[in-house]
């Protein structure tokens, strides 16, 4: 169980990136975090993977506090961030340096096989397409068998076809060991395809504004009515989080302040 308890982050320049964020994520659950820019969603992931320390509050994984990068928490960044001087196989096996060569080789080839890139093992990262590079980044994180995998807008730099492809692929990979997934995204469709719950965040300072239950059986049909309903609920919450005037389904105009109170 991943728990954030009243987590706040104020940067040294005085920017309050996060304030009073509390969240509990059950093992194997997929949670998406959406929100406008500057709402602190990326800051939240940086705190979770130990790259930054919270100013206040606590982050617990299975009851123990996290105070730095953790062996059971992996992350996939917005950019693949592959090490250009290592081959694809070297990148995937980067975290297994302390394992015997045989085990490493076998796990690397299994991981590459799983992301459909076993023929790319000896290739330099510069020779990969954007989608392939992000698959390698996924393999590099998953080979460590994390309990929690954080994804920071992982597919936002890819074209629409590749993105849909990789969303399905991610769910397929997730089904292997069912790690907890925390996906930060600005793509509402992506949040609904992937997540059991969507957290909508609101900026200045960043905090959780709304929580929307999007649990539906998988695989999810992006064209189904249920998908559409969920999407509309997330979009409405996003509008309110940004203090936009919203038109509800009955055509009633409500002020943003009123909507926020209603929530």
């Amino acid at each position: 169980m991943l728990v954030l308890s009243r987590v706040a982050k104020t940067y040294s320049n005085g920017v309050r990136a996060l304030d009073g964020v509390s969240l509990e994520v059950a093992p194997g659950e997929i949670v998406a975090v959406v929100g406008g820019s500057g709402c602190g969603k990326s800051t939240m992931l940086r705190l979770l993977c130990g790259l930054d320390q919270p100013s206040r509050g606590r982050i617990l994984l299975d009851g123990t506090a996290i105070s730095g990068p953790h062996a059971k928490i992996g992350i996939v960044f917005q950019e693949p961030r592959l090490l250009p001087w290592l081959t694809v196989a070297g990148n995937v096996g980067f975290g297994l340096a302390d394992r015997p060569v045989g085990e490493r080789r076998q796990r690397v080839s299994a991981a590459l096989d799983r992301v459909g890139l076993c023929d790319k093992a000896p290739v330099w990262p510069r020779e990969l397409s954007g989608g392939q590079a992000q698959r390698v980044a996924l393999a590099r994180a998953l080979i460590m068998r994390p309990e929690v995998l954080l994804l920071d807008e992982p597919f936002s730099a890819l074209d629409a076809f590749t993105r849909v492809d990789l969303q399905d692929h991610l769910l397929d990979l997730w089904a292997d060991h069912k790690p907890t997934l925390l996906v930060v995204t600005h793509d509402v469709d992506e949040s609904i395809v992937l997540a059991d719950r969507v957290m909508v965040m609101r900026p200045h300072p960043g905090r959780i504004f709304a929580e929307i239950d999007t649990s539906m059986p998988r695989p999810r049909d992006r064209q189904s009515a249920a998908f559409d309903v969920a999407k509309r609920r997330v979009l409405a919450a996003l509008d309110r989080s940004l203090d936009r005037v919203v038109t509800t389904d009955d055509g009633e105009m409500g002020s943003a302040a009123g909507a926020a109170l209603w929530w």
Partner: protein
Amino acid sequence: MTVSAEPNVTRAVASLPRWARPAIGLIVPLAAAVAWEAAVRTGVADGRLVPPPSVILATLSDLVRSGELGRHALATMLRVACGFALGVAAGTLLGAVTAYGRIARRLIDPTLQALRAIPSIAWVPLFILWFGIFEASKVILIAVGVFFPVYLGVLGAILSVDRKIVEVGRVFRLSGPAMVRRILLPAALPTYVLSLRAGLGLGWMFVVAAEIMGASEGLGYLLVDGQQIGKPAQIVAAIIAFAVLGKLSDSILALGVAPLLRWEDAFGARR
């Protein structure tokens, strides 16, 4: 005229086999050599102060056959090698320490930057007083020349390693030394190699300075000797030896590290 001729030349160059293309660069120097040789042979120029290619070649082959050139070249190479090794070791170590530790940088870097502002030749009298007139002072002068480009190269290269790549190392919980070995050094390697080559070039420059200022052997001694006995051909022969050795050592260095840089994805990385 030239406009219409150019595509033809370009096409002619492109149709040459790959290995022959660098030969185009030889046309200008060869033409100049042939012209000068002809000028001296026909008596248009007397060639006493600027010896024609045939005289230079004869001097060069005399020096080679008598073993003189080999002896002098060896002495010079030894000095460059020692000075280069010393300068690279010191530059790499101090560069890495100042890049990795903020306190070390505040402490050491200002002093080194101040010392860098001194033209290295200005040290010569002091080095001769301190280390004598023999090998030590020469090697140290070369080492000082090599040190600064290497130091700056390492410092700059490590400081400019992409934060995002460093974060990958942090997420994988690398220890300090592992971070240096597995992330910082490989990422800094391309710039480091450039600084080594710049350092080697300066090493050759400073060995000439050191040997001109007093040596009983070495290619620099051949230069001074040629001036004193009035043999310009010997000076040019020594200059040619410097050029060949400098280019050779640089190519060996570049080729030696090439396998480590095959991953580079940059303009000019693959030709």
